[in-house]
Each structure stands twice: as C-alpha cells, then as structure tokens.
C-alpha cells in the first residue's frame, strides 16, 4: 500500500518555497508523473528517490521549466506559476544542475559563469577578477581561468553550482550529482550542499545512492511508477523502508506476474568476461553467460552494464592496457568492429533504438535485411530486393510486427513495433548469444508481452540470452539467473527462484 504524508497545511506554511499540487505530466498521453504533491521548504535539502522510470527526472524537469505540466498546479513562494522555459524558472530563482553539465567546454570557468550576462564593454581581466571573488565567496577552489574541458567532474559541478548561485537561484535541483564523482569529490560536493543550505538555498537532489540521501537530506520523497509514495523526515527512514517504498509494487497488478518458480538448467558456458576494464565505467568486471538460460543483468544507470556488453559485442573497446579478457566458448576474442562479433554469433539489441537500432527512413524489410548484410562475409555482393522482401515478410510475421504496409518507414511505426524490427534485425543473423539492452524501454504493454515471449523462446531454443534491464520486475520475470551490477562490476548473483526485489535493489545500491 502506498501512503501520502503531508507535513501540515502546506499552502499556508511560510517556509514553503515551492509546491506542486496534483502535478501530472504526460508524454504522448502516457503519464510520466500523475497527481504528485510535493513541497520544498526554505533552506531544506530534499532527496528525491525512486527506481529508474519512477518519474524523478520528469518531476524536476517540470520544476525547472524544461517541460510544462499537463495538469496540476505549481506554486513558487506561494504564487502560482506556469513555467515553460528554463529561463522563466531561473527568473523565479529555480536552477537545475544536470548530470551532464551544460557548460561550454572550450570556454574558461569565468566565461561560463557570466555567459549570457556579459556587459557591452567586457574586459576579460575584469570577468576573471569578478569570477575569482565570487568563487572565493562560495569557498570553491576552482581556477576561473581554467578551460572547462580540463576540469574534473566535481569541479565542473562546482562551476555549474556557482552559476546557479550567481543567477540568484534560491532553489537548486541536482540530477544525480554524485554519479560521476570520486569518493573525494563526493565529500567536496556534500560540503557544498551544506554551505548552500546555510545560505538559505533550498536543494532538491536525485540520487540512487541511499547512503547519500540518508546522510544529506532533511526530508526524503519516494516516487514509484510516476506516483508519489511517501514524503517524510530523514529520521523516520532507514534503508529497508526506503527500499520497500521504492520497489513495493503489487506484482499481481503488473504485467510481470508471479515470482518465478522454474529455472532453466544451465548449459555450456558460452561467454565469459574476465576482469574487464573500460575507462571509468567498467572496473574489473567478471561474469559468465550460459546456453539455454536467460541471464538478467540489473543495476542502476551508470553501473557499467551496457558498456560491458558493448565491449563484448565489439561496439566499444576495452582498455588498451590490461583491459581483461572476453572468452567466447573458451577462446579469447577481441573485436575491433561489431561485424566480427556478429559473424561469431553475438548480437546486441541496443537500448537506444532511434540512434543505433534502425534506419528510420528505410522500410521494415530493408531494415531487417540490413541485419543479414551485416553478417555477410562477402566484400562485394549484390543486394536482392526480392530476398529482402521475403526475409522482411518472414520475420515481420514471426515477431508480429504490425504496420499498415510492409513498405512503411520504420519511423512511422509505434515504439513496440520499432523494437520488434530492431530485434528481428539481430535475430535474422542467427546468433548464439543475444544481448537485449533495455528490450522494452518505451514499448507498449502488448508489445512487451510479445517481446518477452520471443526472449523466452530463444532461451528455450538453447541460445544464450542476456537481458539488461533497469526495470526490476522485468528482470525477475524473465531471468533464470540475475546478476546485479554496481559501480562497474557485477557484485551479486541471484537464482531467479531465490531473488527478491528488496534483495536485488539492496545489492544494487548498498
């Protein structure tokens, strides 16, 4: 059961600087947040928690004027406002610091700070002096003459924060501010947040790290599936309560049904990743994938899951020095391009279908046929339109791709059908190892069931299937074994029959 807590008569509370009432935001009719009530007090640090897709980012984007509300009210300092641009939000003292900073990398720190506020007769030395004084007043140890591209993630965050304060922001929203920070940089950041609080600035921050929320926040709000679950003082939360609030979905009401009681027997170890390293994203990661099983890989965004399997599929490269090993059927492989992996029977179904998954102006059949061409070992060959049509027809029928005609462009299909085309494009290559990265992201409920059925069919046919998903019920419903990744490596393995949502989430964030 969900519960709503309100701390007193919110609209009359003079301390409240920002309030949302029955806030709803819909994308193409699908609600990302629905009837959410939220309050932020002066000088308060407010943590916003929830699973991926819970609606945290949408809620903060609404507050920052990045997207407008579909319905509901937003009040800033007790007055109702309608924000449609970030500039409007800034005028109301609301600034948002995104996970990926919005600084101009080729400019200096000082130039970035005063960007858009330059005087007509601008002296660079004067800008540097002003920036220096301002940064010192915030106790930020950043050189104003340094080029932003040369700064570390924490310093960039500092500049971003300084810019927000410079714009007289009284409400600053941080979207996963610590995701790219080292432990030392995180400590820096926490000090900054406390300093902002002392200055009377209200802070909202989104974080997947429960420890941070429990350490920093005065109050915590948990969202789930676009709905407000609970808001309460930090002192009334512990890890277990937060996790329960984050994942406490009633399974019987979801698509994903009951807990798995049967696990497919483990076949041959087809793929083995050993001590893989890839920049700061994958850190000494090791895992195995077995034939005839679905290996689910769960983790929060930034856990290095996608990067690990993109290295496996030859889409990105591991570290040049001591990058670890990838063994396919016991033999080390190192792919320079994805085509080599495709020929070895590895298919990767991308999480970002619009950018990497299909050619949007080509037809369904042409897209599927492209998959076949990708596996072809001929340097010179002919493209058979008749064969493309036949292959497209066959796979469209097999995966139940619904379209007005076979010649329709893929961009004109619904998300679910687009995803089926992307899957068909990989399956036409007859792979032995199929890696599905967020296979049902942005896909309607009906298509989800069909895609899940196809994934199960592949495992039943003896293929080694990997499902990377940030949606816990999906991982639990599909997988025979579940690997939980955190900070660039797999940290725990669960059998599907032993796994619990709380256990998996705890492993992913603890």
């Amino acid at each position, binding site marked *: 059961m969900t519960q709503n807590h309100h701390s007193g008569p919110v609209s009359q509370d003079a301390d409240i600087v920002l309030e949302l009432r029955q806030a709803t935001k819909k994308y193409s009719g699908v609600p990302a947040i629905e009837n959410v009530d939220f309050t932020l007090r002066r000088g308060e640090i407010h943590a916003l928690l929830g699973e991926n897709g819970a609606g945290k980012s949408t809620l903060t984007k609404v507050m920052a004027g990045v997207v407008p509300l579909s319905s509901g009210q937003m009040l800033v300092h007790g007055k109702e406002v309608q924000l449609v641009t970030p500039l409007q939000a800034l005028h109301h003292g609301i600034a948002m610091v995104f996970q990926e900073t919005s600084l101009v990398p080729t400019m200096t720190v000082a130039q970035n700070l005063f960007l858009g506020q330059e005087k007509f007769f601008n002296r660079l030395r004067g800008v540097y002096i002003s920036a220096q004084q301002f940064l010192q007043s915030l106790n930020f140890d950043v050189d104003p003459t340094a080029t932003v591209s040369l700064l570390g993630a924490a310093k960039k965050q500092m500049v971003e924060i300084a810019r927000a304060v410079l714009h007289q922001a009284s409400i600053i929203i941080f979207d996963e501010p610590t995701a790219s920070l080292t432990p030392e940089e995180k400590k820096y950041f926490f000090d900054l947040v406390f300093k902002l609080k002392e200055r009377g600035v209200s802070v909202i921050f989104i974080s997947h790290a429960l420890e941070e929320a429990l350490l920093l926040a005065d109050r915590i709000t948990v969202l789930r599936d676009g709905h407000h679950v609970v808001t309460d003082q930090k002192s009334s939360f512990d890890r277990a309560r937060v996790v329960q609030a984050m994942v406490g979905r009633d399974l019987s009401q979801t698509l994903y049904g009951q807990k798995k009681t049967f696990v497919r027997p*483990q076949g041959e*170890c087809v793929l083995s*990743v050993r001590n893989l390293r890839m920049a700061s994203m994958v850190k000494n990661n090791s*895992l195995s994938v077995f034939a005839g099983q679905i290996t689910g890989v769960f983790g929060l965004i930034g856990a290095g899951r996608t990067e690990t399997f993109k290295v496996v599929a030859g889409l990105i490269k591991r570290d040049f020095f*001591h990058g670890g090993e990838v063994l396919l059927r016991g033999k080390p492989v190192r792919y320079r391009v994805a085509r080599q992996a495709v020929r070895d029977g590895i298919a990767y179904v991308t999480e970002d279908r619009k950018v990497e998954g299909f050619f949007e102006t080509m037809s369904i059949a042409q897209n599927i046929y492209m998959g076949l061409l990708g596996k072809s070992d001929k340097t010179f060959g002919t493209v058979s339109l008749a064969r493309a049509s036949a292959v497209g027809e066959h796979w469209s029928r097999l995966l139940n791709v619904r379209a007005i005609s076979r010649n329709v462009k893929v961009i004109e299909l619904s998300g679910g059908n687009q995803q089926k085309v992307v899957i068909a494009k990989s399956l036409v290559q007859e792979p032995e190892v199929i890696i599905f990265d967020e296979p049902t992201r942005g896909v309607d409920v009906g298509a989800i069931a069909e895609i899940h059925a196809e994934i199960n069919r592949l495992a039943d046919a003896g293929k080694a299937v990997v499902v990377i998903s940030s949606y816990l019920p999906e991982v639990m419903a599909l997988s025979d074994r579940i690997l939980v990744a955190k900070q660039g490596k797999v940290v725990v393995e669960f059998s599907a029959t032993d796994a619990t949502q709380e256990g998996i989430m705890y492993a992913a964030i603890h």
Partner: protein
Amino acid sequence: MLTRLRNLGDRWLGRGNAAITVPVMDGALKPNRGLDEATVVAELAGIDDLASDGKDLWLSAGAELFRLDNGQPVPVRRFDADISALAVDGKGRLAIALAGKRVQIVHVASDGVATDGESLDTVQGQALHCVNALAFEPDGSLLLSDGSQRRGPGQWCHDLMELGNTGRVARWNPQRDAKEQLASGLRHAFGVLPFKGGALYSESWRHSVGMARGRLEFMHELPGYPSRMSAAASGGFWLSCFVCRTQLVEFVLREPAYRKRMLEEIDPRYWIAPALASGLSFLEPLQGAGVKQMGVLKPWAPPRSYGLVLRVSDDGRILSSLHSQVDGKHHGITAAVECDGALWVVSKGSGRLLRIDLDQAETRV
C-alpha cells in the same frame, strides 16, 4: 620470431597469455557455504585421501590407514611411510601409494586380515616420485597419477612455483604386471578416474581435466587447481579443487626472476602462493581485498586457501559446487567420494573428514 614479438606485445599490453585473469565463480560455481555447513565426522592430523567401494569407506592420514566404522575412523594399519594415495576395488583389494614412490597392493580378507600383495615402483624405467591419486578400473587394472618427477607429494607448491611439467599418468595391471604410460609431460597430474572406457586425469597447473588417450581436454579453465576425482552414482563425477586461482598468483607465475628469488630466500610458508590453509600467521601475504577490517575477513576476498568441490556431468559441465570461502574453515579439499548416501570430503587444510547428505550436495548451486 613473430611469436616472440607477439608475446612481448602481450606482456606490455596485458593481453593474450599475459592478461592475468581468472575465471569467475558464477552460475553453478556460485559460492555457498556447503562445506562449512557440512558435518565434521573426525579430525585427523594429515588426513589426505579417501576411497570407497560403495560399502566401506577407507581413509588415510599420515602413515596410517583407517576404515570408517559406525561413523568413526578406526585404525587398520600403520605403514612405514606416509600414504599419498588410496584406492579400493570392491573385491578385497586396496592400492596404497607410499610417500609417492611405491604403490602397494593390500589384500583384505573378509575377517579383516590384511596381507601385502604386488607392488610397483617404476613405470617405463622411471621411478615413481609423486604418486598422488589411484583408481581401479573395472578389469582390475590400476590408474595412477605421478604428479612430478622432481618434487614429492608434500612439495606441490614448489612444483607449481617451478612451473613443473613432469607429471604423468600410467596404468598398471598387477596380475599381469603390465605397465603402460598413458600421458606424460603433464603440469602436475593429480587425480585419475576410469571414464567411458578410458582414463580421465586432472592436470592441476593447467586447471584442466583431460582424457589420457590423445590428451583431449575434457574440462578447461577451471577456477581452481583440480585434484582427485571419484565417480558419482547418478553419472558424472566429483572433482575436488585443493586451492583456487587468484590474479596475484597468476601474476607471480609470470615472473620467473621474482619466483626464483622467492624460492631461494623466503620461507615457503610465506610465499605468494596458494596454500591448503591460511590465516595462521600475520606474516602470510594477502591480496588487495583480503585485508581484514575490524578483524573480519570478507568472504569474497581473493583466497590464499579455499575449499571447493565440483559436481561434473558426463559431458564435462559443472552441475553444482560446494564451497568454503575465504572466511570459512574447511579449505584444501583433496578428496570427495560418495558412500552410503552421503558425500565424504577430506579438508586437508583443516585436517577434517566432512559428511554431507548426497541430496544436499547434489543440489547445492
């Protein structure tokens, strides 16, 4: 020349043979506490090997031979040298390897009286040096693994650090006194098993199990150093791994100069090398995450010693496994055999005989 250049490049880039990676323990190898939770039947200093004919369970500890009677080991006979391997054929014959240098057949009458029979001390003109596993074949022949021609059974760690490759597997028919060398040049043969009309052997330093004829690899890239095997009643076999692989040891094994000095100057107890038991002295080397925090050793720390038994199918797949992790106590598993509805396991590291119900042992994943 090209191979040399490639090896040099691999060494510089940390790739290929120089990748220094170890197989991950997941899937059927997912760690559990199966060995730590096993019943401790007895504590015997120097306990090493087990043999069973399905009815009786025999075990060796130092120079003494024991038989399990009413769940407790009863001394049967003391030999003049340590017993390094043991086998029983179910027809009143025991084969016993003494100090790794001699294999003695012992006939045990129904009244329990034991008399010495044939013995073997050379194969193909070469003296036995490190006989560490024995197994009877259905026709009465005896399979034996001779781990090394340079180091005895107690010096396996020296053999590892010297990258020993003088192991061999042989067959001996005591009735006809026919001897046959089945495989040689092995990197520490340690375990034999009659299998599908041929002979399986485990090759510890290659982390693999192979078929003697043609030296076909049956299992490879194991996460530990395999040792003795025993048949499982429901098909396949049990394989014990006496120590596990770590990146640190793999790295040391690639550094000949370092190893040479270590062998010359350091007490073997403190080598950067695997061990049958650990945590006995603060002087022992630790690897990265193995450092104790507030007196607690993390179970997933890189192991200096470890307990691992694998259940392997007929086609070489690992079906399940039993573990004693770094913070466990039953390390250095040198033998595991089925008898009387249970799996009996020797933890040489802790000097204990363990018993696990067969149902539990089979399903532990």
